[in-house]
């Protein structure tokens, strides 16, 4: 394999990062933000698995890296959320069937209603019968078959540069992420997704003890390395301790990400914003929206992007699928040309790293999974010149790389920590830092507790980790669902402080603790001693 890869003009490394924050509310019959998971399941994770099924059936090989965050994998295995997803699909199926009647006089819309009725029927059937509600088994299957390399990320997707004063916290985030991965996939991850590509010099020291071979970096993080990266972004660099950094290629990122001049903005693709939840009369759509009054996206979208006006044309799936194939072919051709140019200047075959948010494919860009499938098939057709590889494949071919250390960076706006440290969210750090200090204090005070006190301390550790999620400051900055983000982080801080005070007063309320354990039930294996200095 190694010699074959060395003879290619270059390699493409597709890395999909699948992550959602921990959102689980058993205290309510249903909860709006749990739909983040349900939409991602229907539109991204299940279509991706179907894509690998088709590729396997056709004997088309693929090598794709996917990072599955610990919060996401926990939710995907959670029985309450699994049941709620089934309820969600059943509701959408009912809406699609109701739409068959509603659109009877409009053949164009009727076809769309039929499409969604078919999609939701199939999704529900497959989720129950094929995946038996746990799609992780199928991800593991494709890893074993060689289609996927599954990697992990920090326990709760913490933006590590803003916590670099707390080595124990960073270790706890990484250790818990690795352990969560190991328990699900029975293997140690070879790579790690640093949340938001947030790197600070020295973070690699926390990765090495867990056998992590690589992480993904922003483009400028690698370009501004201590020593000039002699191969630009097209070969990894090795940190002094041997952990490698692969940098995001920017041309391929933009082609896929941009809504205006990238592929997803093509007029024939499905419009993300035009949703039935806002198109139908309130009394008709009420059973399918939030509390019957607040309109939300249902996922049933009948129109193509068309143009910037409100006069949209009806979505044509065949036309969109053909366009996705065309775009995939163009993407591969461009990467081949890119590799041809690069290889003139490099002593090793270049690798073009293409990391994306997995939820882009399918959720926002409906045709994204079709694009990926066409891309994989096209690379297979052109396998004499180009190959799909995972970062660890590339390291097998080229284990020795330039030694240097990247610079502090992220893939966020302006390239550093602004998104997660801004006037909209900077208030959180006084509290989240205090939580870590108090957790460390608790570990010192209660070094080896058993029984109820140990349970309490473990829950305290869970609340500390949950409060660190990068999603909450991100949402506050991005301005989407801000009240929920604010409340989430405050709740975790409040829960921790309540535990801290209870332990100080030695008045732990078992009923309260049990209720909280059942609600924030993530990382059941977590040992609070992970915050100990010498753990």
């Amino acid at each position, binding site marked *: 394999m190694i010699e074959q890869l060395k003879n290619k003009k270059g390699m493409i490394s597709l890395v999909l990062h699948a992550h959602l924050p921990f959102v689980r509310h058993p205290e309510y019959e249903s909860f709006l933000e749990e739909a983040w998971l349900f939409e991602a399941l229907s539109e991204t994770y299940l279509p991706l698995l179907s894509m690998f099924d088709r590729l396997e059936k056709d004997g088309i090989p693929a090598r794709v890296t996917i990072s599955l965050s610990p919060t996401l994998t926990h939710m995907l295995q959670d029985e309450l959320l699994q049941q709620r997803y089934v309820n969600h699909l059943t509701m959408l199926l009912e809406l699609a069937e109701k739409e068959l009647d509603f659109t009877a006089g409009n053949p164009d819309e009727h076809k769309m209603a039929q499409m969604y009725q078919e999609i939701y029927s199939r999704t529900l059937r497959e989720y129950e019968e094929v995946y038996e509600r746990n799609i992780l088994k199928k991800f593991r299957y494709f890893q074993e078959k060689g289609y996927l390399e599954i990697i992990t990320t920090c326990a709760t997707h913490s933006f590590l540069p803003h916590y670099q004063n707390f080595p124990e916290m960073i270790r706890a985030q990484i250790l818990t992420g690795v352990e969560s991965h190991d328990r699900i996939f029975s293997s140690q991850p070879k790579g790690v997704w640093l949340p938001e590509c947030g790197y600070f010099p020295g973070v690699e020291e926390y990765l090495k003890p867990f056998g992590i071979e690589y992480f993904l970096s922003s483009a400028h993080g690698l370009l501004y390395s201590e020593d000039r990266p002699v191969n630009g972004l097209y070969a990894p660099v090795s940190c002094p301790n041997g952990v490698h950094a692969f940098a995001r290629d920017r041309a391929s990122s933009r082609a896929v990400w941009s809504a205006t001049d990238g592929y997803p903005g093509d007029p024939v693709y499905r419009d993300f914003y035009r949703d039935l939840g806002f198109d139908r009369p309130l009394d008709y759509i009420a059973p399918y929206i939030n509390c019957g009054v607040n309109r939300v996206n249902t996922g049933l979208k009948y129109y193509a992007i068309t143009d910037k006006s409100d006069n949209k044309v009806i979505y044509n799936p065949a036309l969109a699928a053909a366009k996705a194939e065309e775009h995939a072919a163009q993407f591969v051709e461009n990467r081949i040309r890119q590799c041809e140019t690069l290889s003139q200047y490099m002593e090793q075959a270049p690798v073009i790293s293409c990391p994306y948010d997995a939820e882009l494919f399918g959720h926002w860009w409906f045709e994204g999974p079709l694009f990926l499938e066409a891309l994989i098939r096209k690379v297979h057709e052109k396998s004499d010149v180009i190959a799909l590889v995972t970062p660890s494949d590339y390291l097998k071919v080229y284990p020795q790389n330039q030694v240097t250390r990247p610079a502090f960076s992220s893939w966020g706006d302006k390239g550093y920590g602004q998104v997660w440290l801004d006037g909209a969210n900077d208030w959180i750090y006084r509290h989240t830092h205090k939580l870590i200090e108090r957790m460390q204090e608790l570990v010192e005070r209660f070094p080896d507790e058993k029984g109820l006190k140990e349970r309490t301390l473990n829950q305290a550790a869970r609340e500390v980790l949950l409060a660190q999620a990068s999603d909450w400051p991100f949402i506050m900055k*991005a301005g*989407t669902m801000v009240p929920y983000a604010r409340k989430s982080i405050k709740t975790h801080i409040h829960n921790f402080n309540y535990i801290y005070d209870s332990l100080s007063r030695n008045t732990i309320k078992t009923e309260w603790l049990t209720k909280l354990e059942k609600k924030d039930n993530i990382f059941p294996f977590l040992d609070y001693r992970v915050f100990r200095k010498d753990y």
Partner: protein
Amino acid sequence: MTEERLLSFSYEQLLEISDRGSIQVTPGVDKTTLVSLLLDAFEEDKSEREELNNLAIQMEARKFSISQDEELDLGQDDDLELPLRYNETSATLLLRDPSWVFCFWDIEDKKADEIRNTPGFQGIVLRVVELNSKDYHKDNILDYFDIPIKFSDYRRYVNLPSEDTWYCVEIRALVEDKDYLIVQSNIIETTREYVTAPHDNRNSHSDELIRLSGFTSEFGETHGVSGYQEIPQRIIPIHELLDEEQFND
């Protein structure tokens, strides 16, 4: 935000929404005009947010987008109000980007009273100290500057004069013609925003490869990348090989 959603609120609620959003409303304006004003303001706010975010952030935000009415919250979460401070003496410094740090601090009430009551007390300052290493020692101080602060201040963003160096902050009390340390923060290492010069001849094509690592039209995509024009201090010349607008995706 939809017109339908806004119309479902009472006139008083709409005034509260405009108040929370600092939207100027002419007294006595009718409900229809008020709704129209709010819709325009929400739209403008949304566009600004989108423009301010890069592609990665725009994309990430979309996975949390489930409603067009999401910007509005009339709910209260006062029962979860967090303390403004923890009444302890501490200072923390966080590196936000190569040019800016965020610092937050606190001075225990008892200590603050002692300082205030010190004969000759003139005020407190936030001292930003540049160091030549990660170890604090008076011989390692390269430079410093003071920012006057009040006891009621707890946080501040500070623009840093130098990159690729070390900083910490100190809260100091000015007493007569001397100053005394109240608390010192952690030390942070700032970052660099440039490609370093080549060390050797390992790859004589590194200039070309670095140029190719930025965006050019030669690979088919000709998309320009939005620039740093609105934040002039961030214009980054990279050995004259790359245009600054190529570095913000």
